């Protein structure tokens, strides 16, 4: 987290909402008037398989929106953990969806926080909000943004097009915030 800068990668299967999660994070950062960049890996990948989004949040100007060495990796499934764990900065953090990740990795120089995001989402009645659940755990652990900024970002995002989604996403965030477990 050099330069007051947090470099985050969010990774999962296509369909697990990593882009949306990145979007919520970035919007929350805008609400707090921080500098932020967001980027979806639109690159070489074909449809299906894994998807990832990177978000850089900083108090200063952000040079590059790329995240080669993430400070935080938010991991929605096993293949994503296998892929990105090696890149995490020493002293960095992995936020893990424990429902979909059996083996939480082997590095000893990083922290881990885990949450049964898919399970919690399911219990809330919509498996698709696992992405927001895991954001809750991430915010709880890092405090990098204020919870109410996330809630406002959710509000902003859904208010015009899908107001029905506001509640469940807010609940998901809260549940994740509560359910975060260090590992």
């Amino acid at each position, binding site marked *: 987290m050099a330069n007051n800068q947090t470099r985050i990668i969010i990774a999962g299967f296509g369909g697990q909402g990593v882009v949306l999660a990145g979007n919520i994070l970035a919007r929350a950062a805008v609400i707090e008037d921080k500098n932020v*960049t*967001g980027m*979806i890996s*639109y*690159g*070489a990948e074909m449809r299906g398989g894994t998807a990832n989004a990177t978000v850089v949040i900083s108090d200063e100007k*952000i040079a*590059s*929106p790329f995240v080669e060495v993430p400070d935080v990796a938010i991991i929605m499934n096993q293949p994503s953990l296998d892929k990105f764990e090696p890149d995490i900065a020493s002293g960095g953090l992995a936020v893990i969806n424990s429902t979909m990740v059996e083996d939480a990795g082997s590095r000893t120089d990083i922290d881990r926080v885990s949450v049964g995001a898919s399970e919690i989402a399911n219990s809330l009645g919509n498996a698709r909000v696992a992405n927001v659940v895991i954001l809750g755990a991430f915010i709880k652990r890092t405090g990098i943004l204020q919870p109410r900024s996330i809630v406002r970002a959710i509000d902003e995002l859904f208010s015009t097009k899908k107001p029905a989604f506001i509640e469940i996403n807010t609940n998901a965030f809260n549940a994740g915030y509560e359910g975060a477990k260090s590992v």
Partner: protein
Amino acid sequence: MSKPSKKILLKGNEVLSQAAINAGCGFFAGYPITPQNEVPEYLSKALPEAGGIFIQAESEIAAINMLFGASASGVRCMTSSSSPGVSLKQEGISYIAAAELPCVIVNMQRGGPGLGNIRAAQGDYFQSVKGGGHGDYRLIVLAPSTLQEIYELTMNAFDYADHYRNPVLILGDGILGQMAEPVELTKYRPIVDLPEKDFVLDGCKGRERRVIKTLLLQPAEALIEFNEYLKKKYAGIESELKLCQKYRCDDADLVVAAYGITARIAEGAVDMARDKGLKVGLIRPITLWPFPDEDFRAVAEQAKKLLVVEMSNGQMIEDVKLSIECSRPVEFYGTGGGWYPTSEKIMEKIESVYE
């Protein structure tokens, strides 16, 4: 969307699209190609809502030629594409430049040559600034490096196009197009004088009929004279439109030269170098044509060396050398074809060439 006071989060391609609408762009024609698809996607909806015309053309060639017609109709117009698609537009661009029709052309560069890949690149510099089409023409080439700057330069592009009756190229890349960043959508205000469009074809009611053409057959000197005129016109633009940004150059021994997203990443490297006590600065041309040669010359007076960084095998390096009249050694760092520079790697190169 008139003047939201606060910053909103948008992708570069969306910012560009909204800037075009805010600047009064009334016509867009384009053809899908990654990584610029958000431009036609955004405009397909937002432009008609704002009263403009959106056409998904059958090809890039049709698109650029539609601009020929739209501009002749007096409408602010834009097309957007990425590298291979822009290559296809070269004939049309030469025509538009020759007909002196204002328009804005966007190239969100991707990896090449050939089909290449869809990652960001800067391999189309020569095509953009030297002229990939035939004949002696010039495009005004603007190279933003942040989303806020995309917003502003896109609005300005329409002004420059109208002011100089010349096509303006916005040279971005896949990163700038795809990344999201908070942007303040300030109100559009023309930055240059906008002459009356006395070339517009709208039926000759109450006036002499008009002709827009680029064939100059008779007399034999007609085309020569026209080219002499163009030369003067371009010299005129060169004398007044050179935009450049310098960063920590004042006492710099080594100056990094880069444009667009690369400049921004290089700025990170300059900060790292300064943190290590190396006297390094950054010069970033904002107009690639006209190339801000005086600024480069000024910087070269102080600096012992320049380091050009590009996402290409080295193209802008030629203009850098020419602008400083080869008065300083110029190093190069870069690679063609969908390469993402990082501040760290640039820093390594800085350390290796710093004396």
